[in-house]
């Protein structure tokens, strides 16, 4: 299937298009943040603490009187950044390890994959918690922790792709023509492994946003006064009886962004990886 046909298929997929709209919505909000936010996300106004949603404050105000609408808008940048950086941190080493393990096989394969099994032996969020706690809880380390946790997933996907590709005739032909390992791996095998990687990375963005928000919620991610959505939820938790809106809006924002990535990823999978197409 040509790229053009794939794009056309993607445009016809309802779920992919809805997902794309949700993602674009958050991206536009993130870019336009300073122009659309009615108030400063960090400056407290003690006189208007914990007010419910109103015309002046669409999402109400938090315990320090800050405008929650503005904080959610600024938080979009942080969450998108978390998604992109965490996925990059897992994608690059994961892909390289998967390529090496699948291509060279034997001892290299067992060593790499056993290490990956070890990382997979922990529940993801627990490993992320452990890593952030060791490194020191902050936003950067959250992204590093979430990134490390998902390295094995990419390694496995890429390895599986390489294993089936390296037996194929066109790869065998290049081997016999004397192509170097590097050339075979990066020019011939990697490009053919890309579709599942792209699908997984899209779905992975949603997972990364969710995990990072969970760490923020537990107080191990972005620290106050940062308008990170998970950290905002953690603050809202204390006021759930008095002012539920403090937790409601940042949580809804997380759900919308993650749903966007999942819908788009599902649509992409149907187009790029028809073997996995749901009926």
């Amino acid at each position, binding site marked *: 299937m040509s790229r053009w046909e794939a794009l056309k298929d993607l445009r016809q997929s309802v779920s992919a298009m809805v997902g794309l709209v949700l993602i674009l919505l958050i991206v536009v909000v993130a870019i336009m943040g300073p122009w659309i936010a009615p108030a400063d996300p960090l400056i407290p106004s003690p006189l208007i603490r914990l007010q419910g949603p109103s015309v002046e404050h669409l999402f109400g105000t938090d315990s320090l009187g800050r405008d929650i609408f503005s904080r959610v808008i600024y938080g979009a940048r942080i969450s998108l950044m978390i998604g992109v950086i965490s996925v990059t941190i897992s994608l690059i080493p994961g892909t390289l390890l998967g390529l090496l393990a699948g291509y060279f096989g034997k001892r290299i394969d067992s060593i790499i994959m056993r290490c990956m099994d070890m990382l997979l032996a922990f529940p993801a*969020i627990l490993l992320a918690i452990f890593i952030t706690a060791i490194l020191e809880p902050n936003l950067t380390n959250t992204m590093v922790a979430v990134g490390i946790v998902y390295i094995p997933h990419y390694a496995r996907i890429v390895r599986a792709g390489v294993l089936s590709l390296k037996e194929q005739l066109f790869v065998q032909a290049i081997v016999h023509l004397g192509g170097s390992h590097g050339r075979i791996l990066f020019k011939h095998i990697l490009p053919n492994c890309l579709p599942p990687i792209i699908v997984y990375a899209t779905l992975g963005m949603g997972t990364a946003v969710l995990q990072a928000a969970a760490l923020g919620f537990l107080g191990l991610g972005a620290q106050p006064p940062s308008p990170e959505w998970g950290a905002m939820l953690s603050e809202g938790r204390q006021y759930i009886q008095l002012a539920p809106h403090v937790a409601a809006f940042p949580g809804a924002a997380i759900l919308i962004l993650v749903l966007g990535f999942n819908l788009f990823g599902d649509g992409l999978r149907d187009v790029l990886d028809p073997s996995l197409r749901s009926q």
Partner: protein
Amino acid sequence: MTLGYISRRLFHLVLIMFGVSVLVFLMLRMIPGDPAQLLLGEFANPEELESLRAQLGLNQSLLTQYWIYLRNIIQGDLGNSLRSNAPVAGEIWVRLIATLELSLAAMFIATVVGVAAGVLSAVKQRSFLDYASMFLALVGVSMPIFWLGLMLIYLFSVKYPILPMMGRITLGLEVPEMTGLMVVDSLLAGNGQAFLSAVKHLLLPSFTLATIPMAIVARITRSSMLEVMSKDYVRTARAKGMAESVVVLRHALRNAFLPVVTVLGLNLGLLLGGAVLTETIFSWPGLGRYVVDSLAGRDYAAVQGCILVFAALMAAINLAVDLMYVFLDPRLRVDE
């Protein structure tokens, strides 16, 4: 045959646990500072520090230190908690049962609702019901469960106060401990009031924890059912004039169940992770909350113990799933 497979899998499990222990050991050594100080806290007196240093062999080589550490773990000695000074292994055990109760309840909800939704979606493919339940399933997979938990608390404990927002049972209601599972213990004791209270306390947290697995189970059940429903034996069953319900439940669902079981098993790991968040929100006295509290209190002996236990549980679950797979699908036995 199967025995060879099981022993190979057991060997693999031991290997993984060995690797995990090395990883946790090295990670704790990576935290800057003296491990003895870390384990005993900043207010430890010099004699205590010196004695723990000798006990852990901190002035010896890294290899000797690891050997001492491994020997202690194998003997079930996970050290003493910094906060309570009690053995970590004991503290973990008590909380593990609470987590188990929560996870089992969540697993039950996820399976019943997920399978039902998946089967209905497959039977009524491309109907409104199908689209609606699959959209809900996608929302479920994308759900920040810590947010869902908070919203459920607001709805059912604050706005319409019909369910409790924290704990395992109403204060003052005592049940003699037999299994450690409140719901079972109250039932065994014949205490209806306590049973009702335990179930009510369990509802919100277990539903919250069940959200993501429920959604995944629904999606897998649907696609697995659709695949099976197009098979010849289903067509034959229909041609024989069997009732549609018998065709769906007895012929299709049974065969569609294999991938669902795998996913259920893999989700137990997800449940253990989700328990960390759910228990924090609902102040459920389980292992997940214990990890978070221990981290906040810099109680590294407890943290290390919990992580090892979590990893061991995951490994055991994965093994059990694989064995169940062999049990459910006789073809896999012949292949061996």
